């Protein structure tokens, strides 16, 4: 990536709330016109990262370059170019029309206002006549969420940061929001960063997935995280006991790390048990779901092993050969050496 292609360049970012470190990012580059997905459990720092990217907060340490320049909250260069849909969207105490038009009005860009508001509402699947004059509190949860989204879309920003845009939005509207986001990128060259827990939706929209865990980034999509507690078995292996008696073997942890990941491309699926080996994990599980990833043509498959889920990607042939389907009992296999400590 050359500098001219970069929208964001984050270096050595640390962010604290009080004394707690919630973000710790060595480096992150985000390309112009890319759609980046942020994935991670609650409290992993997604919203915090988005707020930093929106320059709504200053990181405690480190610097954020936007298009190669150091920028700060309120610098006029970015104020009208980057917009963030916050996780708990707040509607102003005005009508829906005024809420959506607000951003344009403060930009003094009010030609064809009515037409543009209509279009923005249509983009999120809401009817202009029905909603235009409603007050901010006369909406259902999902409708409010979508109004907030419309208020961002109408701005046609250079960067659109979306924090859980489809939480409590129905499937049909989620599709509309996806289409609107893709259109923005297509037609206006918008750069998007999106955090969400709806992985299927997220995969259907993003070019690149970044996993977050306790404030750290892993750049290759949903990875399978194996969490504490562990037991030391011997100098070469630690183990994690599942409640149903199964055991995951892990290499000894690197210093200062306390969780392990196994990347999804390193996990394999089978129907029969192989010969036991000190370096091979074999776990009994059941397929919970299979989702189609349009972009890759692969099928994202979630396998439940007792109460933890593992995700891996399968190709259609593999599925037909093994006669896999949700509900089928399978064995997951991965090598102990492919486990990484973080």
């Amino acid at each position: 990536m050359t500098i001219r292609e970069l929208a964001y360049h984050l270096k050595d970012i640390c962010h604290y709330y009080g004394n707690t470190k919630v973000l710790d990012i060595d480096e992150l580059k985000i390309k112009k016109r890319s759609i980046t997905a942020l994935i991670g459990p609650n409290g992993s720092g997604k919203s915090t990262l988005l707020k930093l990217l929106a320059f709504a907060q200053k990181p405690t340490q480190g610097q954020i370059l936007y298009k190669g320049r150091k920028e700060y909250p309120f610098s006029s260069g970015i104020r009208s170019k980057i917009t963030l849909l916050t996780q708990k969207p707040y509607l102003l105490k005005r009508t829906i029309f005024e809420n959506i038009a607000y951003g344009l009005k403060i930009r003094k860009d009010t030609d064809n206002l009515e037409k543009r508001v209509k279009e923005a509402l249509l983009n999120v699947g809401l009817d202009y006549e029905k909603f235009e004059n409603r007050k901010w509190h006369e909406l259902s949860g999902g409708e409010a969420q979508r109004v907030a989204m419309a208020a961002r879309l109408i701005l046609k920003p250079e960067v659109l940061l979306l924090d859980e845009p489809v939480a409590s939005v129905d499937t049909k509207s989620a599709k509309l929001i996806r289409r609107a986001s893709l259109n923005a990128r297509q037609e206006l060259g918008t750069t998007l960063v999106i955090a969400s827990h709806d992985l299927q939706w997220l995969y259907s929209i993003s070019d690149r997935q970044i996993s977050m865990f306790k404030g750290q980034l892993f750049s290759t999509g949903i990875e399978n995280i194996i969490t504490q507690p562990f037991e030391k078995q011997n100098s070469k292996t630690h183990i994690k006991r599942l409640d149903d008696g199964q055991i995951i073997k892990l290499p000894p942890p690197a210093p200062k790390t306390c969780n392990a990941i196994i990347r999804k491309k390193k996990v394999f699926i089978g129907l029969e048990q192989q010969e036991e080996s000190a370096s091979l994990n074999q776990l009994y599980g059941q397929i919970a779901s299979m989702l189609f990833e349009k972009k890759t043509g692969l099928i994202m498959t979630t396998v439940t092993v007792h109460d933890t889920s593992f995700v891996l990607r399968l190709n259609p042939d593999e599925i037909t050969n093994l006669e896999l389907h949700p509900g089928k009992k399978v064995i997951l296999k991965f090598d102990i050496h492919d486990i990484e400590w973080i």
Partner: protein
Amino acid sequence: MDFIVAGFIKAIELLISGDSSTWTAIFATLKVSTCSMVLSIGAGLPCGFLLGYFDFRGKKALRTFVDTMLALPTVFIGLAVYAFISHQGPLGEFNLLFTLTGIAIGQTILALPIVTAITASTIENIDHDLKLTLVTLGAGKRNIITTCLWEVRYGILAAAVTAYGRVLTEVGISMMVGGNIKYHTRTITTAIALETNKGLFANGIALGLVLIFIAFIVNLSLSFLRKQ
């Protein structure tokens, strides 16, 4: 008790008969109170906003200061303003003593802490998400102020109404700075004080009712701004 009843009748008489001293006092009252309200709201809203919105070192101390200023006795303000605008005072040349302008200055000082304190506490209460939303929608500093103030408009209305009540009823400043000069700087409150001093309690009650009536009219017209 009888003078209260008499006061009611007298109040109606005063208003209907077009008693010139009453009416000049009404106009004087309206003039100074309007003027001081405009000034104190104009200055108090931004101050209240800054005090309520931002977190900074010494914020608590500043809040305590403003709260203390709520307890400025009117006579004290009157004396202080007098010191400045009396002939020998630094602003003596402007001839503000015994004028309505002088009273308005004093009343502005009186109302300013009220507007500031209540605005600040209302702004302080606003949702953190509102701030974030405004910033991320690209609002500049000016937009943030106006939008936040508009969001808490009912709280601000309360601040204004409270300050208005204070300004309308104060005596100390009007007496000290205005001098209670008949047909000139006599306001309704100083007139009440005068009538009461004369022992004409019924007149005092009557003028009090006139003042309350004015406040009622003003609040009635403001009530259309209220939440439906």
